[in-house]
């Protein structure tokens, strides 16, 4: 297991070092805004906030309420494209 976790850390470091992680994040954000994911989540946030009361909302509440829904609402096309790019990056730097 140590080998696995070691490898995982190495890959993450590689992603950050190469700047690929930042690029992927930017791409994902643009795609999600484009397909309306952000508006849907915002509407959901509104419901959560109304439910909890405007004054008592914390970031933790929002994260626990929103993250599962956010993960489910990502369109398949966006998910596929992102996985493809990650795979390509790994293949590029692992096989070389």
């Amino acid at each position, binding site marked *: 297991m140590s080998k696995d976790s070691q490898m995982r850390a190495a890959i*993450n470091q590689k992603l950050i070092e190469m700047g690929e992680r930042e690029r992927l994040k930017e791409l994902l954000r643009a795609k999600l805004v484009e397909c309306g994911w952000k508006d849907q989540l915002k509407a959901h946030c509104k419901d959560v906030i109304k439910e909890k009361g405007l004054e008592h909302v914390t970031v933790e509440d929002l994260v626990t309420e929103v993250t599962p829904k956010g*993960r489910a609402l990502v369109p398949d096309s966006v998910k596929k494209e992102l996985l493809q790019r990650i795979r390509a990056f790994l293949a590029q730097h692992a096989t070389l």
Partner: protein
Amino acid sequence: MKMEDMPLSGPDNTRLEALVHDIYSELVEDACLGLCFEVHRAVKQGSFFLDETDQESMKEFEIVDQPGVDIFGQVYNQWKNKECECPNCKRLIAASRFAPHLEKCLGMGRNSSRIANRRLATNNNMSKSESDQEDNDDLNDNDWSYGAEKKAKKRKSDKNQNSPRRSKSLKHKNGELGGSVSSEPYKYNYNTGISYETLGPDDVRSLLTTQCGVISEHTKKMCTRSQRCPQHTDEQRRAVRLFLLGPSAPSLPDADAVVESDSFDIPDGQTLMSRLQWEDSPDISPTDSASSKASTNHSDSRRPKKKKTTSLGLNSGGIGGIGGSLSGGSSSSQSNISLSTKKKRPKLSAPSITSIYDDLN
């Protein structure tokens, strides 16, 4: 470049796949966290619900999508029928015609001020003709509606209006006057005349019965004023009629009237004369009295006999009074005749005249 993970990724494809999914879910959670921070910040700053409004106001300001109406539900060509009230003359004028009308009404601008000044001047001079002129203005003013303006444009040529272009065309017309002159003499400028060579004999005759007709030495045109025009004497008028119509032409209608009135007026006392004058004076314009004076002088010189006979038999005290009354009375009565035939002229019966004659003699 040497990679640490190179030997590890190779053997198991499923482990690599799990790794890829982990990275992906990390990225998605990052995005969610970013959104949560954003929303939380907006909520705490109070800007999150700003774009939300209640249903009533949303309904009130709904965008209207109907034909003939703008997005606020208003009819958009309302202004076409708007009318404004002129502050000067208190009349309603179509909005699109308001500015030109105001210019005319207030007398602004070059031409309008000239016209307005002239109107003021004439109004001060002749208070009587003021109302007539106002009426004419009303008739000729096209500011009141679109329809009237269109009509006016159609018959622009035969309408007397204020714009310089129209007056120019009018002047041009004056130069080549036809036979219709005698029927409408008032239409034309008094200063210009008529060339008598172009007129037929009938035209000349009808013209001479209504107008002065004296031929000017300079322009060789006929005077188009009335028969009492002060510029010319009765002698000139008679000469013109003799020249144009021959010796058989009827003499001036004035002459007979003068004779008649003279014969009636002479024996009367001063009181009657003054009464006559008083009665007539409101109707006599300055030009009228001047012309009548001229004609009176004329008649005096024409008939010296009668005058002498009357004055001969008078007492020394009565001469001046009757002499004065002679001219005054004749002038007033003559103007009376020429002004309006309908008006009653105080008549004296024949017997009374003769008796007065006898008394005088």
